[in-house]
């Protein structure tokens, strides 16, 4: 088990270095993408701060609270992008025959596919998010150990759900050679995670908790940190992630079992 993990880590590291080389050779383009990501982060944050110059609270949340929600959303979203970005090329891997090649390699084809693209631009983008989060954390009233632990746990939980969604999408790509629509629905719906789910009307809020669990991924960790998440909902989040992981991995294995090579 340890040897297998070590081997997969070495493969991932090698692929990551190759991605870095690729991105560095794309200097102007990469700089544009990086600047765009930073503009999106800072402009959005600046607008939120500016709005709070004219009001004291938003749905009962202070600026610090809203900043926690916004930055936590960014953390979950960007880290998921760093590690699972390669899944976006799943359809191409199937169509070009790369998946056939992955299947004969002595490592997980899913990990191999995900590692195809490690986005270093997102690694750079996550640094200011962590910096702002640390600064925001200091403005919170004393955070208890349990709240902090629940926050970290639910962020990891959110990443597990994000992983499940990406695995599901990869499975769909293997079965149908369709990907763009599914993954972009997910990317677009993630916009709703920028704000606390409490601000949405009840039907939308329940949808984001039960059907498309973006609220569980992005809002629950912040609610746990602020002490507004009940134990029951925290347990629901963990059970949901476990079920999503199990179901998506089962779907992926079934997809690979039934795969008959599209391109060769």
């Amino acid at each position: 088990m340890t040897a297998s993990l070590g081997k997969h880590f070495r493969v991932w590291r090698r692929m990551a270095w190759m991605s870095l080389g690729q991105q560095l050779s794309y200097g102007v383009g990469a700089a544009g993408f990086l600047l765009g990501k930073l503009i999106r982060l800072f402009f959005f944050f600046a607008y939120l701060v500016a709005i709070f110059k004219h009001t004291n609270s938003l749905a009962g949340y202070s600026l610090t609270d809203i900043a926690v929600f916004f930055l936590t959303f960014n953390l979950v979203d960007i880290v998921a992008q760093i590690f699972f970005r390669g899944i976006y090329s799943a359809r191409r891997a199937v169509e070009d025959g790369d998946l056939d090649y992955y299947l004969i390699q002595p490592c997980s084809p899913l990990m191999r596919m995900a590692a195809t693209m490690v986005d270093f631009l997102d690694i750079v983008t996550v640094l200011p998010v962590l910096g702002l989060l640390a600064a925001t954390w200091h403005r919170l009233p004393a955070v208890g150990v349990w709240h902090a632990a629940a926050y970290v746990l639910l962020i990891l939980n959110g990443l597990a759900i994000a992983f499940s969604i990406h695995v599901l999408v990869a499975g769909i790509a293997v079965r149908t050679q369709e990907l763009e629509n599914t993954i972009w629905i997910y990317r677009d719906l993630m916009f709703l995670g920028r704000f606390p789910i409490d601000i949405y009307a009840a039907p939308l809020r329940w949808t984001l908790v039960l059907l498309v669990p973006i609220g569980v991924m992005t809002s629950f960790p912040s609610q746990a940190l602020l002490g507004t998440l009940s134990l029951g909902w925290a347990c629901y989040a963990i059970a949901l992630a476990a079920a999503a992981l199990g179901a998506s991995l089962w779907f992926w294995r079934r997809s690979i079992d039934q795969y008959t090579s599209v391109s060769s």
Partner: protein
Amino acid sequence: MRKYLHVFSISLQNVLQRRASLLMDRVGGLAAFLAIYFFWSAVLGSKDAFLGYSRAQMLTYVLAMNLLRAFVFTGRGWELVNEISSGKISSYLLRPISYIGYTLSLDMAQKTVHLVSAVLEVAVLVYLVGAPVYVPQRAETWLLFAAATAASSLIFFLLEFMVSSLAFWTSQSGGPLFCFELFLQFAAGTFFPIDVLPAGLQAALRMTPFPYLVFFPINIFLERVSRGEAAKLLLIQGCWLAAIFLATRLVWARGLKSYAAEGG
């Protein structure tokens, strides 16, 4: 002119035929629309006014924003980059047709479909949540708003065309285009009206063409400016349109001179 109308007609049919892509595009826009709408609804809370906007005006800003995002920010920048980089544009350059006019016809077809879809989305949201809608009190406001919207759509088209033309000099123009589009959305007041920003930043943005894309047209619609001011804004917008048109023509002409038809 007839040939451009034919292009418009064929493109319209093409957009309508690819209904899944259209639907996905709209889902993306809808997520941002809902998030921003409920965000502002939460900011307003029980307040009757915010930043000089009445409740109806502020929520109408968000509704109008969805319409303008659909009509102004729908574009073919990425296709243009691809056509230049792949050399596909060569076949268009040989035809007895202006490429800018051809692209504008394609663009207008897309914008038309997206605008109709956005109108339906707004109508459904207004019906479902009972959103208050500000209806202009003066009849000429509709005319001024329509003129400002048409001009802002052309400004965006030309700006995007100009930035996409960087593909004549570098195959990495996707990065700058990505960065430009994101910056434009924030600087135009697409997600938040620029009045919330500090006075210095507002003044700086007002000296650029960007607020003329969304912020000023919506302010005209909301009658937050007098007739005289609206006419002045339209005049300045016209000047920006003329200046950007000339700059785009210049960049395009220079780009064509350096075009080497790689891959074409």
